[in-house]
């Protein structure tokens, strides 16, 4: 799979690609042993492509960075036999020192010391070399014993960390490179070694005071302590004195990136490259250097592997690897001076940076603000070493990457503070820890995470409540490196996303088996639509792929005005149907055999699925008793818990939970008095009952007429299910919907599932969560009850600053999801994110994450439209833009300029809000049906941010002239990268073909005069007129154009777990209106164009 060192047997890889269990036991260690070197570096280049085949640019494509050495180094890692003992991180003077002392240790002390002195006296730059030097000094007690040329010689080493090291070299020459690890920038001038990690340059005097325990972590928080906080730590523009030009500093940075990415994984490289490469200066780069494409890959490249360990660790020390980069700074005592120095750098470099990040953009003048590549999340302004460990923004994202210190400051900024989570996302690599004790804070129960601080070897301080905890004995042993006494190098402390195998304390009852119950509507109306055929066939095809184990149970219920159960007792020749007609007081006709073991009764089940569609073809029953059927399903499931999948095609009309039609087509236009609230609390109550019994209900609504999704949706919303809606489903009249159902159902059936789950979101003392968005039931203040959790669900929370965060440099957030996997294991998935705290308004704007803000606002607007009215919600959205921009104008901008000024980070804010206003959920006008509107609202609440953004603001590409220029190369496939175009008809040309990617659907619009070559070479038809009306597939032709187009489309599809259907749209297609509706920048009958909207905002802002 993705990793050379696959998961040891016994831990079935849950996520598809490899997970790596770590365990404390000796056995597990042995298992891990062969992979020690790689254990933390699963992303070896070769394997990498598996993980994110899509977005990973080839190594070379990130070309602007020099990767020299990283490859070598990674290979070197392989050499590192466990037997090699030189596991001393250059900066970790005390750990693993014995070998050092014995071995011939080259001493670089004197020159280095001099150098550091010189540099520091020059007062300009952190004397990078000093800590290692000092450590040498301490250890070897033979200062200067081995003169090591000049610094330059070491620097020449540069890549030397890797390349220069023969595998066999034990201690002899390992040290110097280790010492100069950070200097290892290709071609860097001598002084570059001064680019030591901030925090690493202690005044020599302090040396003797070094404590007797291994180094602690780099300082949390933005490096400048008490300095201008705006400054990004990585800015090196000021450079070392005299000699360093900008170029040099850039080179320096490259070096850093390289070193960070030392394991040779492209992912890491890209991550660091982005971080170090001045991206911070422009959080939203609008031009698209090829490597920016990597944002996705960054997403996937969850740093399982502490980045860049190889430079720091001399070969032969597997144990080191994990830690080396992480703790480059030497012991904690060294922090302060270093912080200061870095601060200095930052102070010098930061000025220009800040201006870049905060550069006001006149939205009325700058027409092309839309980046041509997908927008990526801003990188928090944290110390690089911390940031490397930070949680992947696709999993955990905050609207403000700089957290305001007080609520007053937050109020002033007029931006919402909140988190967007995608906690159960399918990950290609996920470290799994098996350990009998899970280390947690004793007072707030936070799981130990990379952002805690170790006071010494035996104590750690919680980063959420600041309580000092003991490190349990067991935690002292590191199963990855098999070294004792390095608790800070355990996987728990090296990974912001990690999964624990939970011991029995985390179970209220034995883990439940996977139980699936399908409830089908078989009234006349339902049979008319013909959905049962599709569903049964898809189910039949995927029966073996249902996630589960030998205990998996399955059952079926059908209903019209009565409820039908199916006994699948072993020994029966065919399934036996039991009809319950008493729908007022539903009972279960027989105690067992209604839910049966899937594996033992597979034939009977397949038999039932084959016959089911034919059984009701003559049914004339038009009533629908959905409420009683759900009650029956709940009763059947309540002993075990599990998943109920309900297929409904009309308004429930009899029994409990019967509903009346509330839609009045004439009133659609007024946006007033439309029924967005549920009409009864029956479904809500039932959902809460389900939630209590660990049952989730997923609703598939396939209906032509109004079915009151607002009421029905509650059943899924509060039981943590999901809602699917297929408007006007019909097997003959609407074949496109049939395909959509097939594809989505397949994903639904086969995707990962977690049962009886709860999720808790904790945050640093002082912050509090006050509102939750998503499908679940909030059981107590911070505990979300999720009977089922699926990888396609996203959640959002709003936060406030309760107590001011004075004296805190950083705050952390942790989400912990406890669930039972389909294999019957209890697991805990923990994500931790760390963000800096700032005190000024301009910093807040600098760190604003416009996509997250838009996502959170959309969630808030859904709430508002339900609790108040739709027009209130629309006003609130517009006001959000006006308020934040006028706050920016009045408080941050010193010079009042004409026009509509927005901070660079928020330049897309008006556009995205306009997109929200034009989205089905919030648009006005008569063309949205009520159910459709409510379904879109459900999606807003339940979708992860990435898909929500695509749904709101789709990407438009021109595809008739794809070239290989700037293309990605993945697995020998060439994937063209056309630029993203603005969503305006003016960008469309009649002689082109355009692809619009709206997340769950794609449109390929063919212009009337589209080039003949595209039509024949890609669509495979002779001319425009013969393009079929309902075409949803591109033929695979042997032409270059076809290969390119298909490669691009399938690349887009591979990035998401579901399968977006491609509609080919001509000028006369019925779908043309859906396509044009997404042209957000254009004017429509009831909505403003983008420019008009800007003018409106400007008017309000300048009031």
């Amino acid at each position, binding site marked *: 799979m993705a990793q050379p060192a696959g998961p040891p047997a016994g831990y079935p890889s849950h996520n598809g690609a490899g997970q790596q269990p770590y365990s404390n036991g000796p056995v597990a260690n042995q298992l891990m042993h062969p992979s020690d070197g790689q254990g933390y570096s699963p992303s070896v280049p070769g394997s990498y492509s598996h993980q994110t085949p899509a977005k990973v640019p080839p190594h070379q494509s990130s070309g602007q960075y020099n990767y020299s050495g990283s490859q070598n180094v990674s290979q070197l890692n392989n050499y590192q036999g466990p037997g090699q003992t030189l596991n001393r991180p250059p900066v970790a003077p005390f750990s693993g020192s014995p070998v050092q002392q014995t071995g011939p240790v080259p001493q670089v002390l004197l020159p280095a010391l001099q150098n550091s002195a010189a540099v520091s006296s020059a007062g300009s730059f952190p004397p990078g070399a000093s800590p290692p030097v000092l450590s040498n000094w301490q250890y070897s007690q033979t200062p200067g014993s081995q003169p090591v040329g000049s610094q330059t010689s070491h620097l020449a080493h540069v890549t030397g960390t890797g390349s220069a090291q023969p595998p066999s070299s034990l201690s002899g020459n390992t040290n110097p490179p280790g010492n100069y690890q950070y200097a290892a920038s290709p071609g860097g001038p001598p002084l570059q070694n001064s680019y030591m990690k901030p925090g690493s340059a202690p005044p020599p005097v302090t040396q003797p005071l070094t404590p007797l325990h291994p180094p602690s972590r780099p300082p949390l928080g933005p490096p400048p302590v008490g300095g201008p906080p705006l400054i990004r730590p990585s800015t090196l523009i000021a450079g070392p004195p005299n000699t360093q030009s900008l170029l040099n500093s850039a080179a320096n940075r490259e070096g850093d990136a390289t070193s960070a990415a030392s394991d040779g994984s492209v992912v890491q490289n890209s991550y660091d490259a982005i971080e170090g490469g001045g991206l911070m200066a422009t959080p939203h780069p609008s031009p698209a250097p090829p490597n920016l494409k990597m944002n996705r890959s960054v997403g996937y490249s969850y740093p399982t592997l502490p980045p860049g360990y190889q430079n720091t660790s001399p070969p032969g020390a597997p144990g080191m690897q994990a830690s080396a980069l992480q703790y480059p700074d030497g012991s904690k005592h060294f922090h302060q001076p270093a912080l200061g120095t870095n601060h200095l750098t930052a102070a010098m470099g930061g000025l220009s940076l800040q201006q870049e990040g905060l550069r006001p953009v006149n939205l009325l003048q700058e027409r092309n603000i839309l980046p041509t590549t997908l927008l990526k999340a801003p990188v928090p302004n944290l110390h690089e070493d911390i940031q490397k460990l930070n949680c992947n923004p696709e999993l955990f994202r905050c609207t403000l990457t700089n957290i305001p210190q007080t609520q007053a400051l937050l109020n002033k900024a007029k931006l919402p503070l909140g988190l967007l989570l995608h906690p159960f996302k399918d990950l290609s690599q996920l470290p799994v820890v098996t350990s009998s004790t899970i280390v947690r804070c004793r007072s707030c129960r936070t799981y130990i995470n990379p952002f805690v601080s170790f006071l010494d070897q035996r104590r750690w301080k919680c980063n959420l409540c600041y309580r000092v905890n003991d490190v349990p004995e067991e935690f002292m042993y590191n199963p990855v490196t098999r070294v004792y006494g390095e608790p800070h190098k355990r996987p728990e402390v090296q990974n912001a996303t990690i999964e624990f195998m939970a011991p029995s304390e985390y179970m209220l009852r034995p883990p439940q088996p996977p139980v699936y119950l399908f409830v089908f509507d078989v009234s006349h109306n339902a049979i008319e639509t013909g959905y049962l055929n599709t569903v049964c066939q898809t189910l039949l095809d995927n029966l073996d792929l249902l996630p589960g184990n030998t205990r998996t149970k399955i059952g079926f219920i059908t209903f019209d005005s009565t409820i039908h159960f199916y006994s699948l007792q072993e020994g029966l020749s065919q399934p036996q149907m039991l009809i319950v007609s008493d729908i007022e007081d539903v009972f279960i006709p027989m105690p067992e055999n209604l839910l049966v073991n899937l594996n033992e009764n597979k034939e009977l089940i397949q038999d039932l699925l084959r016959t089911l569609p034919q059984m009701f073809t003559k049914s004339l029953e038009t009533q629908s008793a959905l409420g009683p059927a759900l009650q029956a399903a709940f009763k059947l499931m309540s002993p075990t818990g599990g998943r109920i999948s309900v297929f409904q095609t009309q308004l429930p009309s009899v029994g409990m939970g019967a509903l009346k039609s509330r839609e009045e087509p004439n009133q659609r236009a007024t946006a007033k008095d439309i029924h967005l609230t*549920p009409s009864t609390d029956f479904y*809500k109550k039932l959902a809460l009952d389900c939630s209590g019994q660990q049952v989730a209900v997923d609703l598939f609504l396939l209906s032509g007429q109004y079915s009151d999704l607002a*009421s029905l949706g509650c059943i899924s919303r509060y039981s943590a299910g999901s809602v699917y809606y297929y408007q006007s489903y019909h097997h003959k009249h609407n074949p496109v919907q049939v395909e959509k159902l097939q594809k989505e159902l397949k994903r639904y059936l086969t995707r990962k599932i977690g049962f009886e789950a709860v999720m808790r979101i904790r945050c640093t003392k002082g912050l509090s969560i006050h*509102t*939750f968005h998503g499908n679940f039931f909030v059981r107590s203040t911070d505990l979300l009850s999720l009977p089922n959790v699926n990888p396609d669900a996203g959640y959002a929370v709003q936060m406030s600053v309760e107590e001011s965060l004075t004296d805190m440099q950083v705050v952390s957030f942790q989400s912990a999801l406890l669930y039972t996997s389909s294999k019957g294991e209890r697991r805990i998935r923990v994500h931790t994110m760390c963000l800096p705290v700032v005190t000024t308004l301009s910093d807040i704007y600098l760190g604003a994450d416009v996509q997250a803000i838009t996502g959170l606002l959309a969630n808030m607007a859904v709430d508002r439209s339900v609790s108040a009215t739709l027009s209130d919600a629309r006003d609130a959205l517009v006001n959000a833009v006006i308020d934040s921009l006028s706050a920016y104008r009045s408080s941050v901008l010193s010079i009042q300029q004409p026009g509509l000024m927005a901070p660079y980070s928020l330049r897309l804010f008006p556009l995205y809000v306009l997109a929200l206003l034009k989205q089905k959920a919030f648009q006005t006008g008569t063309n949205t049906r009520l159910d459709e509107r409510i379904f879109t609202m459900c999606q807003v609440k339940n979708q992860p941010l990435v898909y929500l953004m695509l749904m709101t603001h789709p990407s438009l590409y021109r595809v008739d002239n794809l070239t290989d220029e700037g293309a990605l190369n993945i697995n020998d496939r060439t994937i063209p990268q056309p630029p993203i175009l603005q969503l305006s008809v003016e960008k469309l040309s009649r002689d082109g073909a355009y692809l619009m990617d709206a997340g769950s659907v794609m449109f390929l619009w063919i212009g009337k005069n589209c080039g003949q070559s595209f039509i024949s070479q890609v669509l495979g038809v002779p001319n425009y007129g013969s393009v079929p009306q309902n075409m949803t597939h591109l033929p695979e032709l042997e032409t270059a154009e076809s290969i390119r187009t298909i490669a691009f489309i399938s690349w887009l599809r591979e990035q998401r777990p579901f399968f977006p259907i491609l509609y080919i749209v001509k000028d006369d297609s019925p779908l043309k209106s859906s396509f044009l509706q997404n042209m957000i920048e254009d004017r429509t009958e009831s909505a403003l164009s983008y420019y008009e909207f800007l003018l409106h905002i400007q008017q309000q802002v300048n009031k």
Partner: protein
Amino acid sequence: MESVVFIFSLIDCCALIFLSVYFIITLSDLECDYINARSCCSKLNKWVVPEVIGHAVVTVLMLISLHWFIFLLNLPVATWNIYRYIMVPSGNMGVFDPTEIHNRGQLKSHMKEAMIKLGFHLLCFFMYLYSINQQSTS
């Protein structure tokens, strides 16, 4: 006769005070995570109607017995109680809805409301007590 009115009001007021205290205790239990939202809300919703009635009765009684000042004092609170009860959306499970109570600071506002009511009822309690004294002395 007057004293009977006040003695009844006093008893009623005591009941309302107890009810307010019960609301506060239950809500703070929820805040501290001792009970879950579902049971908290079903407990509280049971007592919403008795509270409305209890308070409305005193208010009406004061109107009938022509104690204008006390009537006007009680009127806003009684109106608020009734308004709150009537305005519950159709899909909600009562004034206290378990799915909403943790959102948008509802728990806090419920708590604040219960506190204010407790204070108000205490005030009324002493007012009735004073009135009884007045009656008996005169």
